[in-house]
């Protein structure tokens, strides 16, 4: 039932708006709204009940194992939420004077410093509000760098075919042509393809390492050399940073610019699809182009850096300074972890992924890159199963829901047919992984014994399989009163 269906004309919450209608008004008649606003007229209790019950229809980290590859669904500490929502932090206006926000700014400054260390970069700006915006800002800086040098012939960004879709989409938003390069049999970037693609027209290479295939690009130093020698820059998509945190710094691998998905590696909540936050870090040569605002610490006082301080900045990319409350949560998280805690993240995320990969292989699943170590994630392919039984990766995914597990990422990376990208994250216990393996084994058996049942999953959820095609064909994007 939609909230609108609980509505009755004239019902309202008297506690939640001024008791008496406002006395004064000075707005010309022609600017005043005449049409009614379609908001529900429900009691406070009905709203609370409706949304509490809706919430219960979600799978989430707080209720289920959620091994969604490339998304790093780890525990979001409750302390981060509680402390970022202290009344003073919530009440502070973004344009309030700096001296009324020294506590908040101290957190932001320290977060910048910590992220510099973690990434091996010379400078960090916290403003990007999501991974995709971090990418956009990163590539904008690459472009600004070439432009500042008068290097106008660089029109291409190289992207591996396994990359996140945001990579090519971002390059295009920055006015670049996208050159896709292939992957070799071992899951590495095809070095010959890279060499062939690189040239004076190359603005840069966007790369995730470990890659979205769940393996570490062993040739990264060589790749870095090739791109740099051609005058291009290296962009690090930080989506998989969780796998190497404290092990390898992107700066040490030769990357010039990076975005860090705080909602992945630094455990800020995914919130049903945002808000995220994706600070960008840069090597020395890109420092002048970092987006503002950033926080400086001078003579014991924290202040915002503006256009005056960073005259070559690519500018402002948000109305204020990005997703401040998300940054606060990440700050609290990194302070809880400390250096040792960060090192352990990559260790245990990697242990969990390799263990799960080993167990699923033993259970009879086909691993996409069986000769490689898993990073913090790995790929299972149902190609053979699909051919033999008609059961798809999506069927298996839906059947997992029935068993109380969120499905792994399906059909990404697109170059592996019928794939499941599985990322358990470091906060899951061996017992949970073992229970998941048991469920996967059960489904493997079900595929043999009752493939039609698997194909028509889910069966134990409040709804059965939803019709995506109809949704797109008969667009219904807003409720209309009957």
């Amino acid at each position: 039932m939609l909230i609108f269906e609980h509505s009755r004309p004239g019902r309202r919450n008297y506690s939640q708006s001024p008791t008496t209608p406002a006395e004064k008004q000075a707005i010309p008649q022609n600017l005043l709204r005449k049409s009614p606003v379609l908001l529900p007229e429900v009691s406070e209790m009905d709203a609370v009940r409706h949304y509490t019950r809706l919430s219960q229809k979600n799978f989430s980290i707080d209720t289920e194992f959620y091994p969604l590859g490339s998304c790093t669904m780890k525990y979001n500490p409750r302390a981060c939420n509680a402390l970022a929502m202290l009344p003073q932090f919530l009440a502070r206006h973004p344009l309030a004077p700096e001296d009324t926000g020294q506590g908040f700014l101290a957190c932001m400054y320290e977060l910048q410093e910590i992220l510099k260390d973690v990434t091996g970069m010379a400078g960090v700006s916290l403003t990007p509000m999501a991974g995709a915006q971090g990418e956009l800002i990163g590539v904008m800086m690459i472009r600004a760098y070439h432009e500042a040098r008068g290097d106008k012939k660089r029109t291409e960004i190289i992207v591996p075919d396994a990359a996140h879709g945001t990579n090519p989409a971002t390059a295009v938003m920055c006015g670049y042509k996208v050159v896709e390069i292939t992957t070799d049999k071992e899951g590495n970037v095809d070095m010959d393809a890279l060499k062939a693609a690189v040239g004076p027209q190359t603005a840069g290479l966007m790369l995730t390492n470990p890659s979205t295939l769940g393996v570490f690009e062993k040739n990264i130093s060589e790749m870095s050399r090739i791109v740099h020698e051609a005058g291009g820059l290296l962009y690090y998509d930080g989506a998989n940073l969780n796998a190497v945190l404290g092990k390898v710094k992107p700066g040490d691998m030769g990357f010039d610019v990076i975005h860090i998905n705080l909602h992945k590696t630094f455990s800020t909540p995914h919130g049903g699809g945002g808000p995220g936050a994706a600070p960008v870090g840069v090597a020395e040569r890109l420092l002048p182009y970092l987006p503002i605002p950033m926080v400086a610490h001078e003579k014991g006082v924290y202040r915002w850096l503006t256009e005056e301080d960073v005259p070559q900045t690519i500018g402002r990319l948000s109305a204020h300074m990005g997703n401040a409350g998300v940054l606060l949560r990440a700050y609290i998280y990194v302070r809880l972890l400390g250096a040792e805690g960060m090192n352990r993240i990559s260790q245990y995320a990697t242990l969990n992924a390799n263990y799960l990969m080993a167990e699923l292989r033993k259970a009879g699943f086909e691993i996409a890159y069986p000769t490689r170590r898993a990073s913090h994630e790995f790929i299972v392919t149902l190609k053979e199963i699909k051919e033999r039984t008609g059961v798809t990766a999506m069927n298996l995914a839906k059947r997992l829901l029935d068993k109380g597990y969120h499905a792994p990422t399906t059909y990404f990376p697109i170059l592996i047919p019928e794939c499941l990208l599985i990322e358990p994250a470091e906060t899951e216990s061996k017992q949970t992984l073992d229970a998941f393996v048991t469920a996967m084994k059960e489904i493997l058996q079900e595929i043999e014994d009752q493939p039609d049942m698997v194909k028509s999953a889910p069966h134990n959820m409040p709804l059965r399989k939803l019709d995506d095609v109809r949704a797109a064909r008969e667009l219904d994007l807003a409720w209309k009163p009957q």
Partner: protein
Amino acid sequence: MPFIPHTEEDVEEMLASIGAASIEELFDEIPPDLKTGNLSRVPPGMTEMEITRLMHERAQADGFYLNFIGAGAYEHHIPAAVWQITTRGEFYSSYTPYQAEASQGTLQLLYEYQTMMASLTGMDVSNASLYDGATALAEAALMAVRQHKTSRRILVPGTAHPTYRKVLRAIVRNQDIEVVEIPFDPESGQVIPEQLDPFGQEEFAALVVPQPNFFGVLEQVDTLTDWAHKKNSLVIAVVNPMSLAMLTPPGEWGTKGADIAVGEGQPLGIPLSSGGPYFGFMACKQELVRQMPGRIIGKTVDLDNKPGFVLTLQAREQHIRRSKATSNICTNQGLMVTAATIYMSLLGPEGLRRVAAQSHANLLQLVEKLETIPGVKRAHSGFCFHEAALKLPGPIDEILQALKAQGILGGLSLQDYYPALSNTLLVCTTETKTPVDLDKFGEVLGKILKKYK
């Protein structure tokens, strides 16, 4: 090892299954010379007790003020229910609803949100949110250019939020899009439709119309909309969603209505929180829906014909279309939209209208009060919603300092944004300000200004 559950026994058993001697061995594909990850500048870990104390101390240091700053972020009362429900684990710690059957909570809520925003803006359809108001404007400009096809020129009045204009320029400049600034009338604080014609000589993709504008002044939206439509251009409305409970929605501007409405969703239940996270909203006419970036939720049915909700129109998106996507955006600001939807449900149409009306009435009250102080007068003659620019008879930074010393954040100095507007204060009132607050502001400011008589 905060948050890591592994016991020593677990680790041994897991390594045995993998066939590795140590966790370190699992990293053996990383070239040894790259393993330099010594985090020397990251401080040691803290317990939750320690960080709790630190954060409480920092919050205490920041304190509370009686706030009259607006300028794009507005202090409204937020019902306690909003965030108590929004931060429930099932909303807080879930991902983008890729598996629809396991995400009906988020999906239905987003569908309800889209319905509310479409109605509030008077448009046909809404997406499930963008990052913030400023980037929503930039996305709208890109959308208009895609739709218009022949022009890459966007007209933006100087009365639009200065930071929004900066963000717009920063984002569109790499796509050869020209942002042309339209002047405004310094007396009324508005764009004068009659002065637009020079800018319409050349083809343009869209005209941006802010309502209320950055000075809090109401623009002549009907005339502006019709003018742009006559030039075969699109109209992008940038609106405060709270004001729409009182003001004509963009969908009803002029003869045909604006084509795209965007803005900052923060006034709808999102705390000020030093600037974020907020959310941008975007609504448009039906014919533009396939040009709209961001997530969109559609209603459909399951195998038993029961109604349900899914992510739809994904063919526009980057994970399918890659370099041909409408935008690189993939996340929205889901949790903020969750809060906004609950907020709008709790307020209802009459509640929202009263909040808007009281915010407006309080401004009239405050301006009237402050204008009794010698030397204080309104900077613009146009009608206002809940924000107005005031000329002060002394150096504004000094005055703001003096107000702050008495616990009042008096507003925003406009000089930094408009050099011509020296000693001009942008003040804002919402429904949170009581008669006592307004009196206090008047009294304190009156005393401070005595020395500048």
